[in-house]
């Protein structure tokens, strides 16, 4: 037996060999992981396809501007009041939630840092994003609608409560990306802290914040449950947030989805197409803003 034979191991692993069960397992796993992506595109295509095909049947200017049909089985009628309702209710909710959300995020990142209060608020804001929208709607019913009449503002309050934690968390993430040096430079010039935040930090983070807000608005515009308890029902356009019952696109879809009449079902699909289009447009604008203008990690 030569010395070379002794040194040679009993069996050698050929690292260049193809095939074998390890490679096969790797292939199978890769295929399954790819399949998981394919599986999720199927409902996406089906949902959007159905909404577009069925929604286009009724789509048109008379549908978009017409009043809500008086009875379900009628052929005509539109969703004009629902579009105006969605605009004013979601718009007012945004007006409430954005300044409060920005201030909350400024507290978390610029003032609170990692103190116990900031930690508690950050934790609870994350938890609050998980509060079901139906609970938020009933909460506003209990504290607001019971005292005042049903009107758009109740829906706005509920939607604002849902948007607030989302805006706080996304804005805080954006503030984190603003370089420390910018703040230091501004403070070193003698600028007060509040002025530094308003004129240096916020503008630097603005594109990211705008993108986060747009995504939150797109989600809020599609919420139905909070509106069930707060805004009542209307068949005519009502541009007032504060007085009179109102309606909204999600409410119209919900009402028509349960109907046995084809005409009502078609109106539901038309409203769904309108709502999905609005949500997609907001999302795309948000993506473009954040891809083009925002600070990169």
């Amino acid at each position, binding site marked *: 037996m030569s010395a070379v034979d002794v040194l040679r191991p009993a069996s050698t692993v050929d690292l260049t060999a193809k095939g074998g069960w*390890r490679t096969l397992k*790797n292939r199978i*796993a*890769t295929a*399954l*992981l*790819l399949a998981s*992506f394919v599986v*999720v595109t199927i*409902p996406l295509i089906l*949902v959007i396809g*159905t*909404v577009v095909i069925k929604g286009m049947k009724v789509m048109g200017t008379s549908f978009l501007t017409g009043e809500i049909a008086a009875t379900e089985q009628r052929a005509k009628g539109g969703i004009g009041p629902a579009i105006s309702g969605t605009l004013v209710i979601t718009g007012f909710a945004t007006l409430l939630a954005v300044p*409060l959300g920005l*201030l*909350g995020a400024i507290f978390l990142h*610029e*003032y609170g840092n990692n103190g116990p*209060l900031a930690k508690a*608020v950050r*934790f*609870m*804001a*994350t*938890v609050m994003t*998980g*509060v*079901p929208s*139906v*609970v*938020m709607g*009933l*909460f506003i019913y*209990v504290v607001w609608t019971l005292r005042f009449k049903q009107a758009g503002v109740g829906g706005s309050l509920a939607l604002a*409560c849902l948007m*607030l*934690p989302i805006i*706080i968390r996304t804005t805080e993430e954006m503030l984190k990306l603003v370089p420390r040096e910018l703040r230091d430079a501004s403070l070193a010039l*003698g600028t*007060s*802290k*509040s*002025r530094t935040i*308003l004129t240096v930090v916020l503008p630097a983070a603005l594109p990211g914040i705008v993108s986060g807000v747009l995504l939150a608005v797109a*989600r809020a515009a*599609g919420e*139905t*449950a909070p509106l069930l*308890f707060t805004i009542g029902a209307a068949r005519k356009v009502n541009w007032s947030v504060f007085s009179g019952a109102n309606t909204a696109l*999600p409410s119209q879809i*919900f009402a*028509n*989805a349960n109907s046995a009449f084809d005409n009502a*079902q078609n109106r*539901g699909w038309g409203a*769904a197409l309108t*709502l*999905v289009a609005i*949500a997609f447009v907001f*999302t795309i604008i948000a993506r473009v803003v954040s891809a083009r203008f925002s600070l990169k990690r």
Partner: protein
Amino acid sequence: MALQPLDLRRKARGADSAFKALSVAAGLLVLVILGLIAITMTSKSMPALREMGADFFTSKRWSVPDKVYGAFSFIFGTVMTATIAIVLAIPVAVGIALFTTQIAPAWVRKPMVYTVDLLAVVPSVVFGLWGISFLAPKMVGVYRWIHDTFGGIPLVGRVFGPAASGRNFMTAGIILAIMIVPIVSSLAREVIDTTPPGEREGALALGATRWEMITGAVIPHSKGGIVGAIMLGLGRAMGETIAVTLTIGSSLGVVGANVFASGNSMPAIIASDWGEADSLQKSALILLAVVLFTLTLLVNFAAVAIVSRSTRRSLGAS
């Protein structure tokens, strides 16, 4: 005459401290809202709780004419649909997260992520409309075939019972699964991304295949975070209202193993019964909302704690 030096020690000016106070108040608002939800809703639910007592939680008899409100079947329905949703969503969501972070080439990664995120943009009520008029009628045949094929097997047969219609726990669960996949997969992706490159490359350098690298380095590292992401998805599934209201079938008092039975869930009964409810029934529905709020809060507490602990640990390690 020398210039007067600026006194840097002076206290913050009025506007400055006012701004700070405003921002602290906005932060506190989060705590105030959550506190108010708990207090005001609990007080409004007291009439129903006094009337029903513990029966509210244990009885499944919900009869409006008799003024009897037992919510057990709704609590059961929420657990049932959320469980179906989670079981269906976990493999898909984790699979997508692993594929986009570990396997997909860099240039397809973003388009894939955007595609999955589009699902999160579709409003809940649109999923409901689609579920009630497209999915449910199409799935009845599938449910009946599954019942005919597996219905005879003991135990399994009870789970796959007869399907009276397409609106049932399973359809609601499928819709919920579609809705929570983007949430779970995007959170899981974030956690998986924190795996130190050194550990992944080390595994590959030792001759591991890509799948062995995933099971040996990525999964052990991000297990905790993935569990947290799944729990956040569970919280969403429990609280989802309109899509479930439209697809669950709205049957009262249904408790059983059959996933193809029509039933009801806590958010669904609140949304469907509110319009015609008298004051005691409204109080009972608010009590249900309190139960739902408490359950989702507990699930979210646990999820957020798990996620933050696991990301902190993994960031510390890298």
